[in-house]
């Protein structure tokens, strides 16, 4: 078989497996039809619990019922300090300040907790924290990946869009629609265009040679990501054959893909209002007129070299691609249009690139003209903001979509039309082309289907994700796999009840958060209970709250906050905090010159796809090549080295120490007290005070420097488990 493939010149491994792909399944079995995740959301009344004293809301009723079924009882309520620290870290990714703790402790009103919950939900830090979760799912990065890993200069607007959406409590159904088809559904809203960046976050290589294969890989990425993120399904398993476990047909993979078959990258989508645009146009015209002669001559000088560069690339393409480019626009087929758009960036060398190759007199002349042109910079209008988006081709119709034999781009089987999961709806989707828009309307059909409250997956999947980030584990333990191989929900009645409430209250995430935060379930201690652990070792039924380590981003933000150095400036292009010496990146990493810019929140740190920021990577930041629903949590010596020896951490520890003593007098005892409050939100006990004092004495004697000794103490507070864990 291999030899045959070789002779045919098939270049994909998958092609070799063609003969082994399964025949399509005809009928779904009764068991498949009973699959929990595709059943309508059903609201049941929670059974009456024995313990009538415990619990605040409906969440607790469902949790308690399951626990009592097993003869278990939930843990007691955690103390106020633990609760506030937990809520601050979960909701904002930052520890509470001593002042916030004080305020909460002093508040004896019955609404004290609710006030704190409302305060946290109103904090702009909430959007920054929860956007990071969404960015994991969106495989967000600020660069292309592959070899040169170039910067995507405007993609950060998507990150900002996510932060704004969370802070504004944008209804989740709208959030979904904007990301799938914002350009089609809300053509007058620039933010909706930014939102389509969701499907543009695939790793890409603009100068690929085999463009048909590249296009297929991108479509696969989009299909997998949409299936996982919005539907919680492992669509990817159906790329080569019917899903081995779930009722997702081979065909269904390409039916979903077909919604995107007409999409292309748009990296210069204008975001300005019509007024701004008009203003820009006017100013530009002035500059254009005054500089035209100079620029014409420059362009002419470089033109031969530019043509040469373009031709070099053109010659490297196989004939079918060359044909797609040279065929006149009116004769291009849909697929040729796609190849044209994919080839174009390689055939669009800039004047500057051409000019670099000039020699002798022309080179001198070009340089002279360039300096002449520079004199007009003062009247040149600043570029208008642009977005990197995903839109439809303007071509006449979408290219056909085929089921691909074993997923090989060059092995088409039957043609398919856009459609949903066959087990839910086996008919083709109804596509309505939007009026007066150069777009197919395919994605609108998908967006509307996904955002329908009757869709059994979309809302359930999101509610479960929110639960996952609150408890460290979803009600269904595999948030992007609601399939047979995933974990069944430990409490489906609870999941459904929350889901129904979520869609009924306008898909509001903040309302869902509040419901969860107000529950007694959320407010339990993390204390161990040997009896409960025997019955339910994985705490699936939630007899306690789950203790868990913070993510690298939250660890860094917490250190910065406690050291008083966190710069809470929001939005804008990614920032470049210093890399440890010896780390080189292709694509570039220019350390920030101004310290305060380095000290922005982690969500604003530039995400270089091939070189994650080392501190985040050490603490399990996902690798941005595919959607990540659940981060690994590892314990490695590399993490310890990061916190022990990274010079940034030691610098923050020093600043933390200064922050402590600047704030409060000089007594050592008071300083220890204050440091504990800042790092852990609590005062140290007698034993801890004694240990701290002993350490300071020993270290001061060793270093003959009390300040340095205190900085060492602060450094170790940063390293301590209590600092690194949500408890």
């Amino acid at each position: 078989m291999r030899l045959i493939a070789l002779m045919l010149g098939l270049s994909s491994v998958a092609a070799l497996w063609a003969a082994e792909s399964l025949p399509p399944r005809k009928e779904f079995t009764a068991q498949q039809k009973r699959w929990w995740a595709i059943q309508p959301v059903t609201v049941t009344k929670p059974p009456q619990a024995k313990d009538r004293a415990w619990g605040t809301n409906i969440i607790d009723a469902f949790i308690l019922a399951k626990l009592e079924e097993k003869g278990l009882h939930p843990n007691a309520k955690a103390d106020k300090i633990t609760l506030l620290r937990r809520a601050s870290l979960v909701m904002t990714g930052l520890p509470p300040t001593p002042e916030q703790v004080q305020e909460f402790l002093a508040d004896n009103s019955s609404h004290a907790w609710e006030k704190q919950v409302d305060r946290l939900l109103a904090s702009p830090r909430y959007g920054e924290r929860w956007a990071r979760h969404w960015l994991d799912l969106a495989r967000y990065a600020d660069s292309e990946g592959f070899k040169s890993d170039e910067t995507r200069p405007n993609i950060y607007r998507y990150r900002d869009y996510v932060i704004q959406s969370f802070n504004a409590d944008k209804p989740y159904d709208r959030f979904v629609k904007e990301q799938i088809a914002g350009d089609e559904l809300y053509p007058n809203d620039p933010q909706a265009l930014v939102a389509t960046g969701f499907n543009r976050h695939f790793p890409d290589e603009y100068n690929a040679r085999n463009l048909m294969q590249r296009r297929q890989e991108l479509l696969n990425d989009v299909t997998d990501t949409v299936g996982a993120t919005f539907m919680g399904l492992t669509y990817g398993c159906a790329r080569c054959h019917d899903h081995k476990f779930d009722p997702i047909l081979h065909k269904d993979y390409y039916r979903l893909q077909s919604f995107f078959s007409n999409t292309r990258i748009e990296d210069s989508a204008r975001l300005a209002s019509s007024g701004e645009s008009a203003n820009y146009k006017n100013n530009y015209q002035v500059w254009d007129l005054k500089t035209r002669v100079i620029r014409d001559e420059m362009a002419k000088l470089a033109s031969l070299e530019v043509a040469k560069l373009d031709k070099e690339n053109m010659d490297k393409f196989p004939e079918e691609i060359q044909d797609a480019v040279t065929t006149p626009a009116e004769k291009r087929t849909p697929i040729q249009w796609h190849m044209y758009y994919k080839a174009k960036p390689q055939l669009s060398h800039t004047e500057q690139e051409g000019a670099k190759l000039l020699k002798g007199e022309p080179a001198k002349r070009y340089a002279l003209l360039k300096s002449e042109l520079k004199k007009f910079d003062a009247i040149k209008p600043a570029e208008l903001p642009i977005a990197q988006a995903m839109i439809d081709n303007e071509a006449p119709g979408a290219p056909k979509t085929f089921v691909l034999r074993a997923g090989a781009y060059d092995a088409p089987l039957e043609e398919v039309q856009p459609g949903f999961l066959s087990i839910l709806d086996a008919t083709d989707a109804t596509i309505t082309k939007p009026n007066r828009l150069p777009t197919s309307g395919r994605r609108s059909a998908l967006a509307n289907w996904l955002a329908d409250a009757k869709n059994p997956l979309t809302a359930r999947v999101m509610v479960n994700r929110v639960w996952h980030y609150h408890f460290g584990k979803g009600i269904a333990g595999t948030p992007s796999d609601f399939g047979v191989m995933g974990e069944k929900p430990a409490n489906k009645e609870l999941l459904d009840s929350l889901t129904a409430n979520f869609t009924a209250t306008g898909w509001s995430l903040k309302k869902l958060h509040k419901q969860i935060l107000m529950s007694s379930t959320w407010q339990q201690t993390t204390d161990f209970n040997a009896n409960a652990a025997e019955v339910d070792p994985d705490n699936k039924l939630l007899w306690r709250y789950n203790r868990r380590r913070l993510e690298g981003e939250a660890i860094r933000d917490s250190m910065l906050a406690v050291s008083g150095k966190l710069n809470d400036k929001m939005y804008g292009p990614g920032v470049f905090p210093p890399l440890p010496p010896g780390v080189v990146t292709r694509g570039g990493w220019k350390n920030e010159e101004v310290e305060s810019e380095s000290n922005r929140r982690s969500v604003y740190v530039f995400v270089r796809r091939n070189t994650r920021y080392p501190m985040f990577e050490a603490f399990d930041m996902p690798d941005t090549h595919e959607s990540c629903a659940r981060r690994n949590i590892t314990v490695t010596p590399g993490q310890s080295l990061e916190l022990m020896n990274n010079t940034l951490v030691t610098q923050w520890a020093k600043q933390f120490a200064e922050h402590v003593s600047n704030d409060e007098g000089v007594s050592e005892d008071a300083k220890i007290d204050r440091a504990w409050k800042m790092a852990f939100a609590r005062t140290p006990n007698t034993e801890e005070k004694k240990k701290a004092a002993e350490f300071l004495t020993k270290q001061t004697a060793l270093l003959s420097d009390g300040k340095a000794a205190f900085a060492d103490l602060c450094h170790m507070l940063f390293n301590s488990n209590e600092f690194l864990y949500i408890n």
Partner: protein
Amino acid sequence: MNKNLGHHWPVRSRREFFQQAGSGLGSIALASLLNAEARGAALPMPHHKPKAKSVIWLFMEGGPSHVDLFDPKPKLNELDGQPMPESFGKPITAMGTANNSIMGSPRKWQQHGKSGLWVSDWYPNIAKHVDDMTVVRSCWANGLNHVGSVCQMNTGDILAGRPSMGAWVTYGLGSANKNLPTFTILLDDKEPVGGPKNWSSGFLPATYQGTQFRQGEVPILNLKPSDSSDQRQRNKLGFLKSLNQQWSADKQDDTELDARIQSYELAYQMQSAGPEAVDLSKETEDTKSLYGMDKPETEAFGRNCLMARRLVERGVRFIELYCGSGSGWDAHNNIEGNHSKWCRASDKPIDGLLTDLKQRGMLEDTLVVWGGEFGRTPFNEKGNGRDHNPWGFSMWFAGGGVKGGQYIGTTDEIGLRAVERPCHVHDLHASILWALGLDHVRLTYMHNGRGERPTIVGGEVIKELFA
């Protein structure tokens, strides 16, 4: 329900445990295991008796020309200057060179050793070791360009995101030396294309990712103590331990917290074990010159080869050495100048490594792998260079139970495509894992609902590779 279907294979209990951890059991269980390992519990068992304890992968990045090194093709010289006959089948190439004329090889070829394997005059010293080598002349891969192909040679897929082979090995076998990372990467001055993606743990936990050993006295990031003295650091860590123990007093069930306390002890040890491993001052001048460290053109790669031997001695399992990192061997033009340089840079050091491993009795359980991400085309590029060729190229294997002095597979008459016994990258991976005692279909990790394995859905062990 039977979960062992399709991509899923029955596994031993420890790895099954890890799969569970990956499928949702959560970090607590995972950490308790890390903790157990940290406490020196038994290492995971291989699937079968291993032939090799360690792998040294000599990665000639950029794509060395097989038709100028290990796979002589008289037909090339015959057809020199003529278009490639249609019968060979025109491929899509990286630079669109398939219509260019055939370029002969000016190399002088000789048979070497008892086995009489052919090696060109570019590798006179490596040629002395042919009786310890199997040259696989029928390798093939899927990528056309460097980044995809280097990625595939490391992870099995041309698209980034999967675990590197070294990560799979670490996952499968654990670490034999707690104080050193067990999957290490040595570069020359530049990064390979794709950078750290190539030694990523992909969807496996970060614990298993490769660690780049950097030039200089401090080979690992953040390994240099931030403190002015050892005593100062020890005082701090002592204080940290007391903090952590206090906090853990009522959390005795939480083994992850213990693991974290342990990890500081490991980190402390690594601070001295790392620099010790790369400290060549204890090596004799004879040893250094054996590796070519006494000559400027072979110094850099010689140093890395010697370092690799020291790492193997210290129990490191998987060492990748890049020669020409950043597409050094990528001879689109002037192959004569390009390959002369890189062959010279690697010939003596690799000869030294093989000689040294052998004289120390280490070659028998150290698998040495040589190769690039692909080979080069029979037709010319720019008159005096060659384009990328993933359809047929050579790699060789020595030590670690590999049979000496044999060929596996052939390419066609011009070296364009593998014809007899084609060996895909997955087959090479399956074989390397097999040498280490791991079965590529049983080494699985649950990810997104699939029991993923190192060879995705392909791969067969090349049985005849081994004695």
